[in-house]
Each structure stands twice: as C-alpha cells, then as structure tokens.
C-alpha cells in the first residue's frame, strides 16, 4: 500500500506526519514479528527486526528534503541521477533545423550550421533524435541530482536532492520512487513536496491513497481547496489530516463536511509535539498514545481504500 502525504500549503506538517507515521508503523510491524518469534527479549526494536524491514519512507521533496533531519541516517544521497540530453554530431548535421521545429520545450535553436541546445529546457523526450533525417543526434547523460537509500530507525528510507540551479525536480523524484532495488515492503509512505505543481503531482501519481495535511486557518483552507482539486483530477482517493487543530476556526472542517471528505485524524496544537519536532525528535517513537493514533490512521486509510474501490471515489 502506497500512501502519499501532500498538502496545498507548505509547513502544515507533512514531513512530521510522514516520519512519525512511518516510524510508528515500522515499530508496530516489528512488535507483531516479535510476538510471532516467541516473545524474545529485545531491547531495541531494530534488533527485533533481524534485518527485515516492511515499511518504506520516501522523501520526495527533493528540492528541500527534511525527513533525514528526524531520522539522521548514516548514509548519504550519493547516487547520481542523470537525464538524457541530445548531442549533435556536427559532421552529420546538415542544419535542416527539423529537431528545433519539433521540440515542444524550445530547447533547440535552429541555426544555419549546427543547432544550439539549451540543456536546462530539455525534457529528455527523445523526439529530436527520433526525427533527425541524418541520424545526427545521440543522447548523452547530464547529472541533475542525487539519491540515497538505506535502513534507518527500522525503515527502508530513500531520499534525494536536486542539484542547485536545476529547474526540474521530477527526474530526481522518479529516482526516489524507484523501488526496483528495494526490499519487499508492505507499506510505503511518500513525503510529497508542498503545493500542487509538477513535483507534488509526480509524487502522488501511483499512490493508493493521499493524505492531505492542512491547518485549520484561512490559508490552510485556501491551499487545501487547490490540493483537493488536483488530487481529484488525478483520480486518487484521499482524506484530510488537520494538524495544529485548535489554532484557528472551523472552516476547514466545514469544507470537508460539505465536500464529503473524510477527516481521518486531528493532531492537536500540542506544545510537547512542537518541542519534539524542534529538537528533530520522532514523537511517536516515545509516545505510545500518538503511535497508536497513527497506526489507527493507517487502518482507516486501508478501510477508505476499500470504500473507494467499490464506490468509485469522491
């Protein structure tokens, strides 16, 4: 099951929820395994896992990753992510300019001699190479970011970083979402970037459920409405988590009620939680009550997925 945690507004608590949720879920899984292995006395849940990991956390906010601030992994994002850009063979090129005419992204300029490439505009679609009548275009790699993966806090954790100056986050996000080398996971939590532009959409695509995190304020509602529109456009089932419940007013709850959107969890505006976050601590790792609430949230998501499958979504 893949759960994407998104929002309209930034700073609502996506990463906080994603990390706390993944850690709580990971510990629940290991507790179940501990029971099944005959109640051995492990002091550390990571030892109990015996190297087996069932929960994954993917930090897809590659422009400003934050999950690692809570998890403090021992590994870095050191695998390069490349995109393909065209390279023109000047001997073979006749200067016909067809490649430039077909480029949807204005990345090629037709000049009397050889076309000029603006690599930062290139979306690596390959059409230029495809149409060249003289087979003068080959595709070469250009680095755009890094990804890293490993195990931390009992989770399989992947995160990425877009190189400074790059305009497109989506290739690096796709690399973070690539689980081809990952262990078998039963639940994957994806921490999305804020907003509803391409990076958030790329993260949400393919998820089984989206949790939209908001705060009960006018800004929270305004941006939630945009996020709801985008999520509906993507045809994904979704529910809302209200963070810092109690700070504002009821407009977000009212909106959800009139729109028939389930509010699956309300996290109170709690100083203890805020203090833990400010120290980079995972609150659900030490607070059993909060951990139970989050595990219950996942059960509700599973139930909602069941409902969405039968009723065709909202």
């Amino acid at each position, binding site marked *: 099951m893949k759960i994407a945690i998104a929002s309209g507004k930034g700073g609502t608590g996506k990463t906080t929820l994603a990390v706390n949720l993944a850690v709580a879920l990971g510990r629940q899984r290991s507790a179940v395994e501990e029971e099944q292995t005959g109640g051995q006395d492990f002091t550390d849940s990571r030892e109990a896992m015996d190297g087996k990991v069932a929960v994954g956390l993917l930090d897809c906010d590659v422009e400003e990753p934050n999950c690692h601030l809570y998890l403090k992994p021992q590994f870095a994002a050191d695998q390069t992510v490349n995109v393909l850009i065209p390279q023109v063979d000047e001997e073979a090129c006749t200067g016909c300019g067809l490649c*430039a005419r077909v480029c949807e*992204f*204005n*990345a090629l*300029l*037709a*000049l*009397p001699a050889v076309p*000029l490439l*603006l690599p930062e*505009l290139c979306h690596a679609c390959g059409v230029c190479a495809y149409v060249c009548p003289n087979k003068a275009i080959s595709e070469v790699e250009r680095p755009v970011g890094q990804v890293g993966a490993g195990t931390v806090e009992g989770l399989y954790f992947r995160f990425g970083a877009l190189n400074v100056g790059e*305009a497109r986050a989506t290739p690096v996000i796709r690399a973070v979402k690539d689980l081809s080398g990952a262990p078998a996971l039963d639940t994957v939590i994806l921490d999305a970037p804020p907003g509803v532009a391409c990076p958030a959409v790329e993260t949400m695509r393919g998820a089984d459920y989206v949790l939209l995190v908001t705060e009960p304020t006018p800004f929270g509602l305004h941006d939630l409405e945009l996020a709801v529109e985008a999520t509906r456009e993507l045809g994904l089932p979704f529910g809302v988590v209200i963070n810092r419940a109690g700070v504002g007013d009821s407009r977000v709850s009212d909106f959800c009620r009139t729109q028939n959107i389930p509010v699956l969890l309300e996290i109170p505006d709690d100083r203890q939680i805020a203090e833990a976050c400010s120290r980079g601590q995972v609150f659900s790792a030490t607070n059993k009550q909060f951990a139970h609430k989050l595990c219950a949230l996942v059960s509700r998501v599973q139930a909602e997925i069941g409902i969405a499958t039968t009723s065709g979504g909202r």
Partner: protein
Amino acid sequence: MKIAVTASGPELTSPVDQRFGRARYVVFVDLPGRTLQAVENRGGVNAAQGAGVQTAQTVIDGKAEAVISGHCGPKAFRALAAAGIRVYLTPPGSVAEALDRFERGELNEASGADVDGHW
C-alpha cells in the same frame, strides 16, 4: 540592412514591445528604405518556457542582422549571440522612433542579458 524590432503592433507607428520574448510581433524592416514585414510571435507569447528562444528563432528565420527591443533575457541573448545577431536596447517609443535612434547611433549594443528569465 535588415533589422528586427519587437513591437506590440504590426506598423512603424506601433509601440516597441519592451519584452523581447513575449513580444506580440517581430517587425522586420529593411534600412534605409523602411519597407516592413510584420510576423506574429505566437510561439514566444504562449511558451511556458524558452519564450526568448522561440522569439530568437523567429528573428533568425527572418534573417535579420540586428534586433531592437526594450529588454532581453538570458536565453534570448544566448540564442541571438549564437546566431551572430547584434542586440540593441531602446527606451519606450514607436518602432519608427527606435529606428531613428538606431540610425543616429544613439542605441548601445547589448553585451549580455539585461534582465533575468521570466522577468
């Protein structure tokens, strides 16, 4: 010589369009006679990105030796420089006034972009 001017309309009396990449028209003028051909800059106006590149392509295709505009962004400048087209920047006014200034030698040749992308 053939010179291109970015404009909001297709006439010599039309105002110079200050934004190179988003100009509505590229007006090609043969100097000194001032016979004119106006081309709509559809690609540049509607482009999500690379508007300057698209507009530069129009200027290149029209075989202008130089271009006059209000401001020129980084990709536009790169594209025009690659084609060997000189860029001149003019204060607001009509196409005819900009050509007057050019012919009097009052316009400086730009050595680089004078605004950022998506300005």
